[in-house]
């Protein structure tokens, strides 16, 4: 296996993307075929590469910035997963995007995303990785922006949030460089004990968090769910960005910094994970729109991964990574069902949908499987990874475990509501003529749903071939982890799921509509106030920052204007004395300018002379 093959998964999609981008197409068939072919090629290539180890290093630019790539168990695993999702979703997109506007841009950005993700995963140099990582901003911005007329606002928001956290990562990388003197990932090892080390860890983790979409860097995702085309949601926030973010988070925790259970950073990660789980799932619970509800779950599930990796005990880490791949499978499957429903029914408002079970049986079954997975119903894959995360959390402290189980309860409740409202319940208006989705859309859905089952029933297989070697390469011994966990955990999970069903039934009993079944939680006195604030974006980090910035800018502008104003007034009298024409020229600011210049000069001179 030649080392140069490592360049192919990066170069082929990027070049194809750049080639596809400029050519407009009415139907986009050619674009779709090219994209699918490239994705399938990448998948075949990464499968061929899987299991081998290779490294490529070419000196490129100064400051230790080499073009170095490294393929080993973990990166090969992510590579295969990313290519797999790319292939399935490109197939789906071919059906979904047909006849839509700006297809060339969509497919171009899609391919660019694939190439850049592969680049970021394979990089063995922090700056090179940063290059690919930041490069992802371009397709991210583009894909949201082409969604609809008003998408620019959301795209800008995403760009600023992710861009700002990428800058944090850049600072973190600079710190790592100053501590260790190297940028090669496989050589970096930093102790988290020192203040600088901790700061570097936190800064780099911020970058990973925002890529994965954890709170408080999540706020663009639900907006994008409304604004952007659906395959975008399935490819970026649901799968590839999660893969990349969590992959990098585990690299940070396992390789770059040896995170130990006794470190306060571990507690910080777990706390952040719990907060993300609870807040996002509570927000998801009250959503009345298919895609937006899913997008909040995409945030909430990140909490489990962060919690799992943050435990810093082997079973938790394995659970976190297993949950990452499981999540990518069932969440993209869920998004795809949402897309199928949108495509056929023309709306994703829960209020208008209903009773689609008969019209779209395959979609419905796929949804049920994926929903059961995300809720943690045995024997689907989500159950096992969640159990592992629970086991890890319980080992570190009951508090974290309790939060995680509560999150599970709400997850189940909200999917009961979603499924009930969309597929069961009574038929909504205008739902009579809805048909089953086309085969190109069904194949990816079914494939993903099957994976949910396979990864659940035969969970030992992915754990042994994919996850265990990945973390073993970082020196973590997997231990005996198969088949879920203790009886206590399973019982507790069943209790949570049962509670969710009871809750749903009681809510349904009150309102008789599926989509209002959890309104009693929404209207709970304390919560309704918090919900109102959250819906009005009082807590959105982006809006807060924007407000502060605008305030500063206004303030400075005011000072500028105020100074101007003072001298406009003072200078009026002097201006009368000169000719009328010159008065028009002379606003009278000159004296002020000279005075200020001289004051500045006096300060400089005084500093130099003292």
């Amino acid at each position, binding site marked *: 296996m030649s080392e140069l093959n490592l360049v192919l998964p990066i170069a082929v999609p990027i070049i194809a993307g750049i080639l596809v981008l400029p050519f407009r197409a009415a139907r986009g068939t050619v674009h779709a075929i090219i994209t699918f072919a490239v994705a399938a090629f990448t998948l075949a290539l990464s499968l061929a590469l899987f299991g081998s180890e290779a490294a490529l290093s070419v000196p490129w630019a100064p400051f230790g910035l080499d073009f170095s790539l490294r393929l080993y168990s973990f990166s090969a695993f992510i590579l295969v997963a990313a290519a797999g999702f790319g292939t399935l979703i490109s197939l789906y997109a071919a059906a979904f995007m047909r006849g839509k506007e700006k297809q060339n841009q969509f497919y171009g950005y899609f391919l660019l995303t694939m190439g850049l993700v592969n680049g970021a995963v394979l990089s063995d140099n922090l700056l090179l990785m940063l290059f690919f990582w930041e490069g992802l901003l371009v397709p991210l911005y583009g894909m949201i922006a082409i969604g609809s007329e008003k998408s620019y606002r959301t795209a800008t928001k995403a760009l600023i949030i992710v861009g700002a956290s990428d800058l944090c990562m850049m600072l973190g990388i600079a710190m790592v460089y100053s501590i260790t003197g190297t940028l090669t990932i496989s050589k970096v090892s930093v102790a988290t004990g020192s203040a600088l080390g901790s700061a570097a860890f936190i800064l780099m983790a911020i970058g990973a968090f925002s890529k994965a979409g954890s709170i408080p860097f999540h706020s663009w995702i639900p907006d994008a769910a409304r604004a952007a085309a659906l395959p975008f949601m399935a490819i970026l926030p649901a799968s590839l960005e999660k893969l990349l973010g969590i992959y990098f988070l585990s690299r940070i925790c396992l390789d770059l910094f040896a995170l130990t259970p006794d470190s306060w950073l571990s507690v910080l990660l777990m706390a952040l994970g719990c907060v993300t789980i609870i807040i996002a799932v509570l927000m998801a619970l009250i959503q009345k729109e298919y895609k937006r509800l899913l997008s909040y779950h995409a945030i909430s599930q990140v909490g489990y991964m962060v919690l799992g990796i943050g435990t810093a005990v082997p079973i938790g880490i394995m659970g976190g990574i297993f949950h990452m791949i499981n999540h990518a499978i069932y969440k993209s499957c869920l998004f795809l069902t949402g897309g199928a429903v949108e495509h056929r029914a023309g709306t994703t408002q829960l209020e208008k949908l209903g009773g689609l079970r008969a019209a779209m049986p395959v979609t419905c079954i796929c949804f049920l499987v994926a929903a059961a997975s995300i809720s943690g119903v045995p024997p689907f894959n989500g159950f096992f990874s969640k159990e592992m995360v629970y086991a890890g959390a319980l080992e570190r402290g009951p508090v974290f475990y309790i939060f995680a189980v509560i999150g599970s309860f709400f997850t189940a409740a909200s999917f009961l509501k979603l499924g009930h409202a969309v597929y069961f319940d009574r038929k909504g208006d205008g739902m009579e003529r809805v048909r089953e989705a086309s085969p190109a859309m069904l194949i990816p859905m079914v494939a993903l749903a099957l994976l949910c089952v396979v990864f659940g029933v035969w969970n030992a297989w992915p754990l042994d071939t994919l996850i265990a070697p990945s973390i073993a390469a970082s020196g973590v011994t997997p231990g005996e982890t198969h088949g879920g966990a203790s009886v206590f955990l399973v019982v507790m999970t069943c209790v949570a799921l049962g509670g969710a069903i009871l809750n749903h039934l009681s809510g349904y009993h009150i309102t008789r509509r599926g989509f209002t079944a959890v309104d009693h939680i929404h209207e709970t006195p304390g919560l309704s106030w918090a919900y109102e604030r959250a819906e009005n974006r009082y807590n959105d980090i982006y809006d807060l920052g924007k407000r502060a910035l605008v305030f500063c800018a206004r303030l400075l502008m005011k000072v500028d204007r105020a100074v101007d104003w003072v001298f406009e007034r003072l200078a009026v*009298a002097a201006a*009368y*004395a000169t*000719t009328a024409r010159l008065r028009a020229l002379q606003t009278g600011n000159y004296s002020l300018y000279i005075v200020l210049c001289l004051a500045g000069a006096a300060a400089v001179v005084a500093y130099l002379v003292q």
Partner: protein
Amino acid sequence: MIDDLVVNAALCMLMTAAAIWTVVTVRLLRAAIGLALTSALLTIVMYRFGSPLAAAFELSVCAGLISVIFVSAITLTSRLSSDRLNQRESEVLRRFWFLPLLVIIAGVILYKTSIPIEIIAFEGKTAAQDDVRSIIWNTRHLDLIGQIAILLAGAIGVVLLFKERKHG
């Protein structure tokens, strides 16, 4: 033989007076003359203080060019009636009565708190003592070319700005 100090002091005072007049006057032409006068006096002061090179440059650049631009500004502007001018002038004079006082006070303060000169003298001749002619003609071709270019720029500027606009 009048004392050097007296002459220098008188020149400096004259220069200050000319400068204040330039600032205070409301007639642009007078201001231009005031500026030229200030520059000329400054040139003399520089020459007397033993810096003929600086003096030559001051004369050519400040007195020459800035005045040219000033004059071009005058031609671009229209005039007030002389009654209004006089009225404005007395107003401005009333407003800036404190300027000469300020200069005198500043002078006194500077004199009282005179900072001791602590330059470690350069061994041998410093630039300030060179002969201006030999400097300009022997070693400073570059600056001579530069001066020519400045004058050219000024000439182009005057031609350009004097000319009436074609459209309206």
